[in-house]
């Protein structure tokens, strides 16, 4: 209490200083005045009276100073003084200040951004009650290299009845529907779910109610739950929204409730949730994998136990299954498994995140080292200043405090810059994550991470900044005085900065190698032939209302109208429709049935993905036909279905012979032999699932067999720029209820399919460039200082006949041997660490000699350049001037 009041009084004193100062002066003046008057009254002469009063009072200025000291924070003013001094020092050497602040800012900014991202995506607990108990149950087919396939309704039914590990289970299926807001139509992302989802997430409606199990029956599903943000943006939080009708895909849905905001952490894309329904028949297709199955584990059950149970559930299904199902399961190795919800969500980007985190840790390390080195060199250069000030009476504590404040000022400004950088970077990351992990919420800056980065760099800055002072404290003063002029720096200091340089070079090489491998992988990925000509093709999606899909005839009619009317746009040479967008839609593989399997017995389950196209697809995409023919319009009306397959398919399933006339089915063995679909053509491979798809599953093309809502338009045109508006007009003229979206060139679709890889590559390359720059700066700084300290020695060498070349070589050698050691350590480190990024490399081995040689040469060149600049200065030393100035 007492000390609190004291603190308050002193704080007030700090702010009301002027006022209090005046009061104090007045008080003492009055005291002297009274005394003088008293003495005059006693009959002393005025001048003598004033003098006597002053003598009795004592030193006025001294007492005033004492009073001031009692009133205020002495240290606050001392620190302010130190900060002013530090700023003056830094202004005198702006290059040093700028480089240090920039280095710190970049290091702190990069670390904060990356670690915040990793934290947001991987570590921050999902905002649900006991979120660690939330799991996803999914399928994997080991023999087909499929690590994650969704689940089926049949599995949900089986688990609901027989699994013992779960408190609640729920299905979730993302969809996009056409939302009719009365005056306009738009695409609305939503989810079909079972009522169990709300139960397992343990959420309560903020308004109204959730739908129930009864709604998960066909016909009962015309209800919808809104997410809170959709309720806010679309309905202005109107509480009367309940019982209103929402028109989705031409269906009237009754709004029954509003879900709380936390639900958006489960899937950030979704705006509405409506019941998932299925027919009793569908509930028996164990491997119709098209829904996501989530569960909440019972408190005592571990994920490992749940996995074991999933294994035994798979086995008991297998034991009772039909021979054809068993054969499929044998060949694909398909089985159910369980994973933590959060881990499963980030699985696809995990390696990239770890890599970036490792990279940024190295950057932070190098930043610390570099800042330490800069401060060390600078403090060394100021050694004589310290000695001088010490001799003039500054205490060691005062010198140490000033160094500390100087380091802290640098760290503070650097931290501020880092905060701004981190904030900006996260904004850019968010644009990427919205695409790569659409269900994740936007990333936020994590203040704890920022605090950690600032604390770490400050500790390093301060710690190393103080080294020379500690050195000074230990050293004998007179010795310091003697050595302060001209002589070279202490051996200990030089060893430390040599070690720091070696460390910097090693870390820079490590990062360079990682970035080099990724760049090579990226180049490989870009170089992959798409198998078609994406230039001058514009693509867009449309969603057909149910009225256009009521019958095969209606579907065929709208398709023909679309092709015809888009073809009327001037400059358009051909138009095609497909049910999927290459490089963007991930096509699930079908299990095939081959009429005669020519492969050796025991080969894995044959699989292929099917692309549904119109006959004009070949001409529009400029696919290359290798054998046979592509579809022609009459094929659609002919009896037996036909397929066009790609080269891989032909090679895989018809080895050593022509695939034309080969027979297979994607819907199981047909009843009659004559009903087998036949292959009519073979085209060049197109990696529809993106060039990075490594499952090796081939693709087959077929004519439209069913009537989906989503259709992709492809338009080949000489003028891609203004064709999108014209396309939109044409589609609207056919039916204003058909929304057109995701319009763009096919080239941009291809390009964005590499965004994930590009993001990791660009970031790691940026880190590597930063590391390289910092290492070069480190080498330069230390050598430049060294040269300036050895002017005399170099002068003597010149005087006794050393040539310019010899002097340059001497200094160059100094830089290069340190870089060489660093290089060697870095190469060993890279060899050990780069194996961890194998999964990110694309047709590149983690030991790729080209990359290792390339980055080594690059690093040595930069090191040579960084050493050459001080070397050249050394060579310019005039022996006569150098010797005379001593």
């Amino acid at each position, binding site marked *: 209490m007492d000390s609190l009041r004291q603190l308050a009084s002193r704080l007030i004193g700090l702010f009301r200083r002027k006022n209090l100062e005046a009061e104090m002066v007045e*008080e*003492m003046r009055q005291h002297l005045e009274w*005394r003088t008057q008293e003495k005059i009254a006693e009959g002393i002469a005025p001048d003598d009276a004033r003098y006597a009063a002053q003598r009795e009072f004592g030193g006025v200025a001294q007492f005033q100073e004492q009073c001031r*000291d009692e009133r205020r924070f002495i240290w606050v003013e001392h620190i302010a003084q130190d900060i002013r001094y530090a700023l003056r020092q830094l202004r005198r050497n702006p290059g040093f200040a700028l480089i240090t602040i920039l280095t710190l800012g970049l290091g702190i900014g990069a670390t904060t951004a990356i670690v915040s991202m990793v934290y947001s995506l991987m570590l921050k607990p999902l905002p649900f009650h006991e979120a660690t108990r939330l799991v996803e149950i999914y399928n994997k087919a080991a023999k087909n290299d499929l690590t994650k396939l969704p689940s089926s309704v049949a599995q949900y039914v089986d688990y609901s009845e027989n699994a013992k590990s779960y408190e609640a289970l729920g299905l979730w299926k993302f969809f996009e529907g056409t939302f009719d807001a009365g005056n306009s139509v738009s695409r609305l992302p939503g989810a079909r779910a079972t009522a169990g989802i709300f139960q397992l997430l343990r959420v309560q409606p903020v308004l109204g109610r959730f739908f129930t199990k009864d709604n998960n029956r066909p016909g009962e599903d015309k209800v919808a739950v809104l997410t809170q943000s959709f309720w806010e943006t679309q309905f202005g939080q109107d509480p009367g929204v309940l019982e209103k009708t929402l028109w989705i895909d031409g269906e009237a849905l009754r709004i029954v409730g509003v879900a709380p905001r936390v639900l958006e952490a489960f899937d950030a894309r979704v705006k509405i949730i409506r019941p998932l329904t299925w027919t009793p028949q569908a509930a028996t297709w164990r491997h119709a994998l098209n829904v996501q199955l989530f569960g909440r584990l019972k408190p005592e059950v571990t994920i490992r136990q749940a996995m074991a149970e999933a294994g035994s559930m798979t086995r008991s299904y297998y034991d009772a299954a039909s021979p054809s199902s068993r054969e499929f399961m044998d060949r694909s190795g398909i089985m159910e498994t369980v994973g933590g919800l959060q881990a499963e969500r980030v699985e696809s980007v995990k390696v990239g995140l770890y890599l970036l985190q490792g990279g940024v840790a190295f950057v932070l390390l190098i930043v610390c080292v570099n800042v330490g080195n800069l401060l060390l060199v600078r403090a060394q250069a100021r050694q004589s200043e310290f000695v001088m000030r010490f001799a003039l009476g500054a205490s060691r504590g005062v010198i140490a405090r000033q160094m500390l404040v100087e380091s802290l000022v640098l760290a503070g400004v650097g931290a501020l810059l880092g905060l701004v950088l981190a904030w900006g970077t996260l904004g850019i990351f968010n644009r990427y994550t919205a695409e790569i992990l659409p269900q994740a919420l936007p990333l936020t800056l994590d203040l704890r991470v920022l605090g950690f980065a600032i604390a770490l760099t400050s500790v390093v800055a301060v710690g190393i900044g103080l080294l020379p002072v500690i050195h000074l404290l230990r050293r004998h003063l007179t010795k310091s005085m003697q050595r302060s002029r001209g002589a070279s720096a202490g051996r200990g200091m030089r060893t430390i900065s040599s070690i720091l340089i070696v460390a910097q070079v090693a870390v820079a090489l490590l990062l360079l190698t990682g970035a080099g491998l990724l760049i090579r992988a990226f180049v490989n990925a870009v170089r992959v032939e798409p198998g078609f000509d994406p230039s001058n093709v514009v693509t867009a999606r449309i969603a057909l209302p149910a009225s256009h899909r009521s019958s095969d005839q209606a579907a065929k009619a709208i398709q023909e109208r679309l092709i015809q009317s888009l073809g009327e746009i001037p400059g358009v040479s051909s138009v095609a429709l497909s049910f999927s967008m290459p490089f963007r839609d991930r096509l699930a593989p079908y299990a095939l049935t081959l009429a005669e399997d020519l492969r050796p017995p025991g080969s894995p389950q044959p699989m292929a993905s099917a692309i549904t196209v119109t006959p004009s697809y070949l001409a529009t995409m400029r696919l290359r036909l290798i054998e046979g023919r592509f579809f022609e319009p009459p094929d659609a009306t002919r009896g037996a279905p036909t397929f066009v397959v790609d080269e891989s398919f032909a090679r895989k399933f018809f080895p050593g012979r022509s695939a034309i006339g080969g027979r297979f089915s994607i819907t199981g063995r047909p009843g009659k032999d004559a009903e087998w679909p036949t292959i009519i053509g073979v085209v060049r491979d197109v990696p529809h699932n993106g060039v990075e798809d490594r499952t090796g599953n081939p693709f087959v093309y077929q004519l439209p067999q069913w009537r989906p809502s989503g259709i992709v338009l492809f338009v080949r045109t000489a003028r891609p720029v203004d064709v999108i508006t014209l396309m939109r007009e044409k589609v609207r003229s056919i039916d204003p209820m058909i929304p057109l979206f995701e319009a763009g060139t096919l080239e941009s679709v291809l390009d964005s399919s590499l965004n994930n890889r590009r993001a990791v590559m660009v970031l790691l390359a940026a880190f590597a460039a930063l590391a390289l720059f910092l290492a070069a700066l480190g080498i330069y700084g230390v050598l430049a200082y060294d040269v300036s300290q050895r002017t005399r020695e170099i002068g003597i060498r010149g005087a006794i006949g050393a040539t310019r070349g010899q002097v340059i070589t001497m200094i160059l050698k100094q830089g290069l041997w340190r870089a060489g050691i660093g290089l060697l350590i870095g190469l060993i480190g890279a060899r050990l660490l780069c194996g961890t990024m194998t999964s990110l490399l694309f047709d590149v081995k983690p030991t790729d000699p080209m990359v290792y040689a390339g980055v080594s040469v690059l690093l040595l060149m930069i090191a040579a350049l960084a050493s050459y600049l001080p070397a050249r200065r050394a060579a310019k030393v005039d022996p006569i001037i150098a010797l005379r100035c001593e």
Partner: protein
Amino acid sequence: MSKIDLLQGTLDMLILRVLARGKLHGCGIVDRLSHLSEHALKLGEGSVYPSLYRMEAKGWIKPEWAASENNRKAKYYSLTKAGRKQLETEQQNWEQLSAIIAEVMQKA
């Protein structure tokens, strides 16, 4: 160091004691101190001010500007509750300390 502390501490205690009788300005405190000590105490008159400012910061005394006997504004100091307590403890400490010192001086 300890000598100064002792002196300072003692001066603080004496001022507190003087102020216990009622509020006074700096000049009045000096007069009162020299009167009570029968002018035996020699101290620079100004040295009461650092002491006053220190005790004000500690919250033992509080200042106020009021009209003086000759009708001019002067800064008066009076004891606070905390100051009264402090005076009590200091007085006790002082009595104990002087008793101990007296005993040591006699016996040694």
